[in-house]
Structure formats: structure tokens, C-alpha cells
């Protein structure tokens, strides 16, 4: 009888019961080489627990991937004198160059608004203006980012097996910005975040790309003259070649 009670107690979801995320990435660094055309990152993991799986429902996983934040200027066109020209502008401070959200259930089910507020998970929360005048500009940042494929939300894209194993693929676009990409994994129960884990993906230019980028920034004059020389040689070479062909 005592044993049975003990067993039942163990089955009950204890407040603060230890359910932790263990996570891994298929690759922790991305090298941008000349033939780089986007890559898929496999994010996988498991829910680690001391106790058997609690019968309570609503265990979800949310994963975000965030690119380096860059300062931008957002401008709005207005019509004056029959011509559309830039009028108002906003400098919203650094915004993510890339942002992807994946979840194992629709986000409004997997996450309570107050938890979103605390952890800044969804796109509208990340791009939240300080006042009403800033908001239309930040909405535009989200809209343009989605249209360009730099921001996206994949609801239900995480496969969660037996409330324990999960995996998802996040596609990085080909026009990637260099820097550290932060992967955040959230475990939620009934919409409340019960564990959070961070991983980093290093995105770096490599090989020839690295060399040219460094050259352009460290020896700009030499680089410019080299570009000219390339142009001159190519122009002369083509002329000489065609003169020889004599057609």
C-alpha cells in the first residue's frame, strides 16, 4: 500500500519538477565559401527528467534562431507633388538580420503572452516599438523580412516523439550575414517556459571569400587598384583575342 502511494506521488507533476532540455546541432559552424547557397541546420534533442513522464499535458518545444543584430534606417515614402519620396524615417536600433521560430504546436497554444513578454520569443515581440509612431515602421521591418525570407515562423514543424525526443530543420538563406547565430530552445508546459537552453552557430566567410573581404577592408586602395588592373587586363585580353580571331 505504501509503495502504491509512493508510486502515485511520483507520477504527480511536482511544481518545479526537473524537466530539462538536452540539445544538439548538426553543425555548430557555417563556412561561407564561393559555392555557398544556403544550408540546413538540424536541431535535435531530448527532454531529460528524473521522474517518469508526468501525465499532465501540454508539453511543447519552441526553437528560435537569431542572426546578428544590425543597426538599420527605415524610411517611409509619402506622395508630394505627384511623386513618391522618402519622408519620415526611424532608427529602431539594432534588429536581427535573421530570425526563425519553430514550434511543436501553434504558438498561441505553446506560449502564454506573458511568457513571450518575458523571454521575447515571437517576431512581433522582438520588433516591438516604444510608441504608436514607431510601430508601423517595425511592422514594415517584419513584413519586408518575411518577404525576403530572412524572417519566418514554422509552427508545428518540430516533431516531438513520446514527449521526449524532438528534432527540426531550420534553413539558413544564401544571403547570410556573418556573425554568431543564437539558437534558443524553450520547453513549455501549458504555455509556461520551464526550461531554456542556448547554443551558438558560428557563421564565417572562408577561403577566397574571407581573403577578398579582408583585402577590401584592410587595404582598400590596393584592392581598388587591383580591381582596375583586372578590368584593364580583361578588356585588353578580349580585344587582343578578338583581333587575332579576325572575324
Amino acid at each position, binding site marked *: 500500500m505504501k509503495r502504491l502511494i509512493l508510486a502515485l506521488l511520483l507520477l504527480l507533476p511536482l511544481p518545479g519538477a526537473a524537466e530539462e532540455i538536452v540539445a544538439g546541432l548538426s553543425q555548430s559552424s557555417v563556412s561561407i565559401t564561393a559555392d*555557398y547557397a544556403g544550408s540546413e541546420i538540424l536541431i535535435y534533442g531530448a527532454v531529460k527528467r528524473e521522474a517518469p513522464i508526468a501525465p499532465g499535458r501540454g508539453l511543447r518545444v519552441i526553437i528560435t534562431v537569431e542572426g546578428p543584430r544590425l543597426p538599420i534606417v527605415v524610411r517611409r*515614402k509619402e506622395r508630394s507633388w505627384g511623386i513618391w519620396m522618402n519622408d519620415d524615417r526611424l*532608427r529602431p536600433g539594432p534588429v536581427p538580420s535573421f530570425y526563425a521560430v519553430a514550434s511543436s504546436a501553434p504558438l498561441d497554444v505553446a506560449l502564454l503572452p506573458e511568457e513571450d513578454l518575458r523571454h521575447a520569443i515571437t517576431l512581433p515581440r522582438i520588433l516591438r516599438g516604444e510608441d504608436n509612431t514607431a510601430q508601423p515602421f517595425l511592422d*514594415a521591418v517584419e513584413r519586408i523580412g518575411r518577404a525576403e525570407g530572412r524572417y519566418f515562423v514554422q509552427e508545428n514543424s518540430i516533431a516531438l516523439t513520446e514527449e521526449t525526443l524532438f528534432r527540426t530543420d531550420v534553413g539558413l538563406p544564401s544571403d547570410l550575414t556573418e556573425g554568431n547565430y543564437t539558437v534558443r530552445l524553450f520547453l513549455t508546459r501549458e504555455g509556461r517556459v520551464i526550461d531554456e537552453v542556448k547554443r551558438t552557430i558560428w557563421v564565417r566567410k572562408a577561403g577566397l571569400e574571407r581573403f577578398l573581404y579582408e583585402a*577590401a*577592408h584592410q587595404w582598400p586602395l590596393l584592392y581598388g587598384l587591383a580591381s582596375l588592373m583586372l*578590368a584593364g587586363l580583361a578588356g585588353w585580353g578580349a580585344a587582343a583575342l578578338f583581333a587575332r580571331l579576325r572575324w
Partner: protein
Amino acid sequence: MQLYLPIAEVAVNAYALIGIGGLVGFLSGLFGVGGGFLITPLLFMIGVPPGVAVATGANQVVASSISGVLAQLKRKAVDFRMGAVLLAGGLIGSAIGIWVFARLTAIGQVDLFVQLAYVLFLGVVGAMMMQESLRALWRARRAGAAQIRRAHVHTWVHGMPLKMKFRASGLYISVIPPLAIGAFVGFLSAVMGVGGGFIMVPAMIYLLGMPTKVVIGTSLFQIIFTTAFTTVMHAVSSQSVDIMLALLLILGGVVGAQFGARFGVRLKAEQLRILLAGMVLLVCFKVALDLVLTPAELYSIAPMALP
């Protein structure tokens, strides 16, 4: 084949780039225009950032102009003396233009100014050329061979002091008009990010009265130096020259310029001018449309330079 560009930071189709280079090179060899006013919008279309497109476009124009000049040189169709005078003016104008460009950037209306300049100059130049060459073609068809042929028409330009002999062009005129034209084109090329051939060519034909066959080579000769100057300026001030992008554009461009120069020999001067006028008007119309039509997205995002 997708290729990642180190400075533009986008992956683009390598064949598309060679194609764009080839098309612009062809036109360059055919008309003696640098093609800057075409290459920049085309690069925008495939997703290259504007700053990189302008700077790298200039570098490509250097290559196709050299290739074009060498082809014209074979036909002895380059007036070096005239080219040097135009260039002297061009460097002065370009220095002023760079200063104005910096002022406009500070105010934040540089895009609008560039677009308005495009519409105004392409429109005026295109319309004038179209009207003149159509009329010439009409007259030639009507009068047949009975037309009186003159080397060029004398205008107010020919009454100025400081006269100089330009043998290749068959001209004996004051150096003031070519200097002024060079300066004006240099100014525009710095502000609009183009070589300025589309203004230089008609100005040489109609204002200076140079023969069409010399105009192309001389214009290209002058464009080499203007765009070379622009390329180095951009590389030093904003690191926006993408050498990988330039290489592909150049590959297409130098070959295209050779084809263009060959093809140009088979066309009559009037036909050549009508074609150029048509193309200039087309680009003008496109830019004007963008200014007037309600854009699909009212907002635009630009990266902010780190302080």
C-alpha cells in the same frame, strides 16, 4: 550555378551575371556608352545591394570601355586630343559632384535626386536624339542622293576664343565647350553613378559637331578614366567594390563589347542613333514610372553605417 559574392553578401546565379555583363558590353561597344545607366538597375533586380551595384558597375564599365576603345582604335576612330580635353573638364566636374553627393546624402534625399536626374537627362537627351535622327532619316529617304553634305553645322559654339585643332575629328574649335561638356558630364557621373556616355555622345555630335564615327571611340576613351577614378573612390571610401561580381560582369562585358563594335560597323549612323535614343527613353520611362506609381511597399530598409 549559384555563387556567393564576398562584398555584396548574396548568392546569385553566375550565368545571369555573365549575361548582364554581355548585354551591357554589347551596347557599350555599339553605342559608345558605358552602360552604367543600365547595369545598376539590372543588378538591383537580381538582389545586389545598391551601393555595391553602383561601385562594381563602374569597375565593369572600365573593362568594357577598354575593350571597346581598342576595337575602335583599329579603325582610327579615337580623337585622343579631344578625349584629353574632355577628361580635364571631367575631373573638375567630378570633384564638384562628389562634394554635392555628400551634401545630398546628409540631407537624405540622394535617391530622389538621382531618380529625378535620370528622368530629366535621359528624357531630354533621348527625345532630342530621337527627333533629330528620325528627321535625318526621313530627309535622307526623301531627297535621296541629292543632299548637300557638310562636315558639320556651324553653331554659336564655333565662335569662341582659345581655338585648338582636333585633327581626328576634323575640327578647329575653342577648348571652352569641350571643357564645359566634360565638367558637366563629370559632375553628373559622380552624382548619378554613371559613366555619362549617354550625355557625352549626343553633346559631342550636336554641340561640338564631331563626326559620329569618332564620337564613340573618344567617348569610351574618356569614360575609362572617369569610371576608373570612381571605382577607386568607392573602394577606398565605402569598400563597396565586389571583385568577384566585377570579374563575372567583365567576362561577359569584354566579349559583348567586341560583338557590339563589330555589329555597329554594319549599321548606319542614323539607325544607331535611333536605337540609342529608344533605349535611353525606355530607361527614362521606367524610372519615371517608379516615381509616380504607388509603390507596393511604402517602407524601405537601409543598413546604417556603424559609427
